[in-house]
């Protein structure tokens, strides 16, 4: 099932759902004739879309709003924080091309602080699916929840079949006592490749798909910290405020510590290019992740990385 198919099913069965977009129709192209007045395109007005979504939610509607992640979370930030966050209205934000998925667009379009700023809003929940399968697993629960939510939309097909989603729970792919990779979003694919490479080097490797970044699965982090020599956070996000920060917060909260190697963007935007080249240039291919952890080069072959379709 695709994002659009799921959204269509839910919107057609629940009259309260209003599908909104700030003229970003990549994921909602077929919805206007199906939903009629319950499809609202406000044009290129992220702020007004969010304010209007708050007004619709005030009337009992459940708006699911679409825009590029960068503009949804940053251009409209104060509207999200003030008009959705303060009254804790059930507005559902779908952020398109977050993180590395903005590939060749350039820094204007790079949402790599979105996790930090969205999770800082009281009542806001934050989710980052590993791929389309993960996305489809989580959306129904997220959209049925009475809380506001931000989803880092990722419709890539990784071929991995994920465990059922549970809000606030991470997906533990494997456990290992040498190293545990913690990741979210499209880098899950590369972390999975890295896991296999590290295992072939004889390491005992854990991998956790964080999925639900707020609420976060504290127990999964604590168990990994207790059971592994090294934690590696892998994310297409600034170093501050994302998963590395979340892990640090959880460890400190529980008065414990761990060796943590962060792989993130430290005080810089990433090099704009097509996604496979971005990952290579920035050192985030599975092979590069594995070699960063090992500290030496290997003979492994990095599997091909699919270029995103425009609709991703």
């Amino acid at each position, binding site marked *: 099932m695709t994002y659009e198919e799921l959204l269509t099913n839910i919107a057609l069965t629940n009259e309260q759902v*209003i599908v909104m977009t700030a003229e970003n129709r990549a994921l909602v192209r077929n919805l206007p004739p199906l939903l009629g*007045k*319950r499809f*609202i395109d*406000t*044009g290129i*007005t992220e*702020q*007004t*879309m*969010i*304010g*209007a*979504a*708050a*007004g*619709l*939610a*005030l*009337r009992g*509607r459940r*708006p699911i709003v679409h825009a590029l992640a960068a503009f949804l979370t940053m251009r409209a930030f*104060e*509207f999200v924080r*003030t*008009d959705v966050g*303060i*009254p804790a209205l059930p507005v559902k934000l779908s952020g398109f091309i977050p993180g590395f998925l903005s590939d060749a667009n350039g820094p204007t379009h790079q949402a790599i602080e979105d996790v930090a700023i969205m999770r800082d809003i009281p009542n806001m929940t934050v989710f980052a699916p590993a791929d389309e399968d993960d996305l489809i697993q989580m959306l129904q629960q997220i959209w049925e929840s009475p809380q506001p939510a931000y989803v880092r939309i990722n419709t890539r097909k990784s071929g991995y079949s994920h465990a059922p989603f549970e809000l606030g729970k991470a997906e533990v792919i494997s456990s290992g006592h040498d190293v545990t990779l913690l990741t979210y979003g499209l880098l899950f694919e590369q972390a999975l490749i890295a896991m296999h490479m590290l295992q072939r080097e004889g390491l005992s490797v854990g991998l956790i798909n964080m999925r639900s970044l707020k609420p976060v699965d504290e127990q999964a982090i604590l168990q990994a910290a207790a059971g592994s020599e090294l934690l590696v956070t892998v994310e297409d996000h600034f170093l501050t405020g994302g998963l590395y920060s979340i892990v640090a917060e959880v460890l400190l909260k529980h008065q414990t510590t761990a060796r943590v190697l962060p792989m993130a963007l430290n005080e810089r935007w990433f090099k704009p290019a097509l996604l496979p080249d971005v990952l290579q240039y920035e050192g985030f291919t599975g092979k590069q992740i594995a070699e960063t952890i090992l500290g030496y080069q290997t003979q492994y072959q990095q599997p091909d990385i699919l270029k995103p379709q425009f609709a991703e």
Partner: protein
Amino acid sequence: MNKEQQLQHIALNVREHIVRMSTDGGCFTGASLSAVDIIVYLYTSFLNISPNNLDHPDRDYLFLSKGHDVPALYGTLAELGILEKERLQNHLSVNDHIYWHPNTRVPGIEFHSGSLGHLPSVAVGVAMDIKISGGSNKVVCILGDGELNEGTCWEALLVANAYHLDNLIFVIDRNHFQANVRTEELIPLEPLADKFEAFGAAVKRINGHSYTALEEAFATYPFQEGKVNVVIADTMRGKGLPSIQERADRWFCNFSADEVEQLLLELHGQHPTELTSETLIVR
């Protein structure tokens, strides 16, 4: 008393409430006095809002986007029995929710505000839902003129026009001041009616202190089928208190107890008070 006299009587009481809130920390006295007659008129004569229907789906909506006009709203809600009058004595108290900007803990307040340029879009969302649901509720959103500096006001107008929200009325409290200066000396707004018309609105410009003019304007709602309504209500900062009227430095006031007593008399026609309390320029 005829109706106009009744409204003037209520407005005088509201102005007294504002003056009483303008001490021990103070409030946006000058700013909110300009909106008193608009708010009193809307609640008593135009909007279907009463103590008995605050949660009713058919009620009308008032959104105060110029959040610092809220003393005028507190006073009106108190006069109409929506907010208990005694609670006005809790102004700025940690034990109540009567503070400098509107919040929904106060009965009758539909949405919080304070950050300018937000409620036009929230009101657009509510008006959209009323259209989708087939309701006949009216939605009024009061804006300050200085607030019109915010681009999101104009963004919301574009969308309101696109969706033909003739159930939505933007009322501009046109007191010709923004926080510290006259609007035309900082970011000129005129010709304001032309701007709104260019955005597709049906516009009326009236004296915002004349109940006759307010009645004449709102009686013709919706002004034009399929068009968002705009009322530019020309008002006066500090209206009712000659000692602070049209003064740039009396946006926010924190009077002494003695000054409050004098100002209450001034509201009833006594000569202007000689104010010695510090003037405030907040921004």
